[in-house]
């Protein structure tokens, strides 16, 4: 975990410099009518009139002491702004990942078992489409079909379970397709292994072979992908949150960058950095649970 500190410092520094390289929050926060004196006062009030290295130094110093600054836009503590949006993001990420797992993995297993059958072809066609379709387009088409034409699901907003369906489906589609393809190829490889032949030879039912022997081993690459897909979920979330008006972190990040709301952007960068560190750690632990050979210190 300590290894992540230099990474976080590096990332915040880069983001800090890039943000300050262009645009002035005083232009974006104050009405265009404001005078130059108003703008100066705004910069002074937010410490933006100081040299860059002093501003960054103060940011680090305050962060270490637990003060992450206040949002220029909202006037609230930046951390509070992030925490307000966090539940929506977690909810959407969990729902879309769960959907992807529940649909993608079984589809991959079926495709592997029924290799070169109609089912396999249909699943793989679906997976190719699912991976190549643009989330923005998919979201709008789903709204048009299910919401405007059929009127069965709400088009936007957050609060009810029904409102979660379309965003989760849109965000989960890419991962679902990826998981289906990955499960299929991983299963095919596993199914060729000797221990599968052994399992069949000792008279186990197909079901037992798949669930107890094959799938467990085929899951290792899938866990890796789940970790990596987190970054996709973050990026794709901007689009999905935009289309479905989902009040999450994606659009908050996007808006805060456009508005040059430095404190909020930096809090998000820190937070996302920490999440990545945590997820990678979690995946390492999961590996060792699933495959004893990977355990640290034990001979391969």
């Amino acid at each position, binding site marked *: 975990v300590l290894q992540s500190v230099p990474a976080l410092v590096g990332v915040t520094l880069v983001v800090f410099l890039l943000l300050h390289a262009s*645009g002035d929050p005083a232009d974006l926060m104050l009405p265009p009518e404001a*005078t130059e004196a108003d703008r100066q*006062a705004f910069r002074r009030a937010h410490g933006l009139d100081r040299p860059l290295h002093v501003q960054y130094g103060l940011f680090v110093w305050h962060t270490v002491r637990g003060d992450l600054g206040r949002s220029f836009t909202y006037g609230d503590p930046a951390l509070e702004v992030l925490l307000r949006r966090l539940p929506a993001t977690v909810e959407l990420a969990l729902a879309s990942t769960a959907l992807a797992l529940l649909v993608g993995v079984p589809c991959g297993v079926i495709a592997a078992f029924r290799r070169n059958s109609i089912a396999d072809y249909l699943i793989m066609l679906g997976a190719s489409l699912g991976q190549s379709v643009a989330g923005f387009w998919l979201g709008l088409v789903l709204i048009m079909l299910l919401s405007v034409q059929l009127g069965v699901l709400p088009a*936007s907003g957050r609060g009810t379970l029904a409102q979660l369906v379309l965003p989760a489906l849109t965000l989960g589609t890419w991962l679902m397709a990826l998981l289906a393809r990955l499960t299929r190829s991983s299963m095919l490889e596993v199914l060729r292994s000797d221990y599968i032949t052994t399992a069949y030879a000792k008279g186990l039912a197909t079901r037992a072979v798949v669930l107890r022997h094959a799938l467990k081993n085929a899951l290792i690459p899938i866990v890796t992908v789940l970790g990596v897909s987190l970054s996709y979920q973050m990026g794709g979330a901007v689009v999905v949150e935009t289309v479905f008006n989902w009040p999450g972190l994606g659009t908050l990040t996007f808006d805060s960058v456009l508005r040059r709301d430095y404190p909020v952007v930096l809090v998000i960068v820190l937070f996302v950095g920490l999440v990545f560190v945590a997820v990678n750690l979690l995946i390492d632990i999961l590996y060792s649970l699933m495959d004893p050979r990977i355990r640290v210190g034990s001979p391969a």
Partner: protein
Amino acid sequence: MTRPEQRERLSRRTFLRGAIASSAAPALMASRAAAQPASRTALDEWVVAVSEDITTIDPLVEAGGAIRWMVSYHICEPLVGYEGPSFEAVPRLAESWKYSSDTTLELKLRRNVKFHNGDPFTAEDVLYTYEAHRSDPKLGSGYVFDPVEKFEAVDSHTIRIVTRTPVASLLPNMAAVFLVVPKVRRTMGPEAFRRHPIGTGMYRVAKDWARDQPVELQANDAYWGGPPSPKRLQFRFIREASTRVAELQRGTIHVAENVPLAQLPLVKRGNTDVVVMKGSRIIVHEFNLMREPFSNLKVRQAVNFAIDRDVVVKNVLQGYGLPHVGVFAPGWLGYSTDLQPYTFNPQRAKQLLAEAGHPNGIEFEWQITEGVFQKDREIAEAVAAQLKQAGITARLRVTERATVFSNHASGNFSVVPVQWPGTPDPDRYLQWLFVRPKGVSDSKETEPIRQLMEEGRRIIDPEKRAQKYRELSRLAYERALLLFTHVQDELYGIDRRTGWSPYPVRGIAVHHWYALHPALKR
């Protein structure tokens, strides 16, 4: 425009009559709506989808964004409003006003007005609001109040404002930012007030507001001008235009702001329709006058002669705009129709370029925005293609808005876009065009312009003042100080049952109002 002195001792009835007469165009539109009583009663609650995040609804909280002003305007009121298509000054919390000298303005406040919590409205509330503005530079209202020497209450219902020099824009600028807040805010504390702002306006906050939530308002039945309709009004932020349109089609929202042209066919059918606020947003492009080749008058004229504005408006904007002639737009103080427009003439442009010493044409970089205004990129591409016919090569560079702002200020541009919505007073717009940007303000070309601005700022009489701005507009247009393209219409999708059409209210982009004006109800 009516002289302010004539506004003295206006009774409510004359105000209502005056408001009807002064805002003839929206009145016509609204009365057309009123002619369909069934549609009026059909919807007691309107949900308005706005395209920008509502960052706060307390008028005294620092935070950018124009939408919040529009929302606040329904809850709190200015002393004097500038409303309707021609900036008509309309009594709001002040029932009359007069200049006793060029630097002294006296406003008589409306009596028997109550805030939503029942507190009576008095001069003390006006002073409280004024002090809040004075003490918080982050509100960005220094431009309104810096010239003020004294802001005092003569009695419980009279305010006197003394300025150091004559400031013609004082009243219109106050209309934009000075939404009166009760002095009880001080005891409530800003946190509580932010959740539940109190004003004298047509609507009161129905439910404590929290960020990322819709703003829910209900009619203030005790409103001094009579109860408004609809009874309930909700503002919801929906970022994506397609989603706004989808929700409109579903009937879950009733007015959608900022409808993109591509979605018009979807909106113009069934129970939904499109309504337009004509020519409400100026989009103009600034030349860097200190840089080659735009320091040369003939080059600037050549560029303006090489643009076919009618084609841009007709084909790219599908007619939802106006070719931009002069510095202002229709309805603005100083707008005039007697300017000779730059008509599309590539031959003339080529000739001017040759005379300027560029027989082989010119090339320049044009910073443009994408997806910020209606068809901004498409318009720039169309114009670039037209310029090409005159041997002018415009290299388009899509630039993020924040960068456009800072490049504009620092003079780091050859050509850069500027937009301005209808505001009650032209002075700040002209500041933004001719004083703020380096590369423009340090050019000798703009000296006479700034001189005229200075004079215009001191003329209290609106008609005489308009004359100055007409002169300014002619000069800037003839000297081709800007690359003129178009004025954009604002498009709204509506549920037909609302019968709503935009009633312009000028402020910091507070350019429309959702309540049907009580004065227009009968």
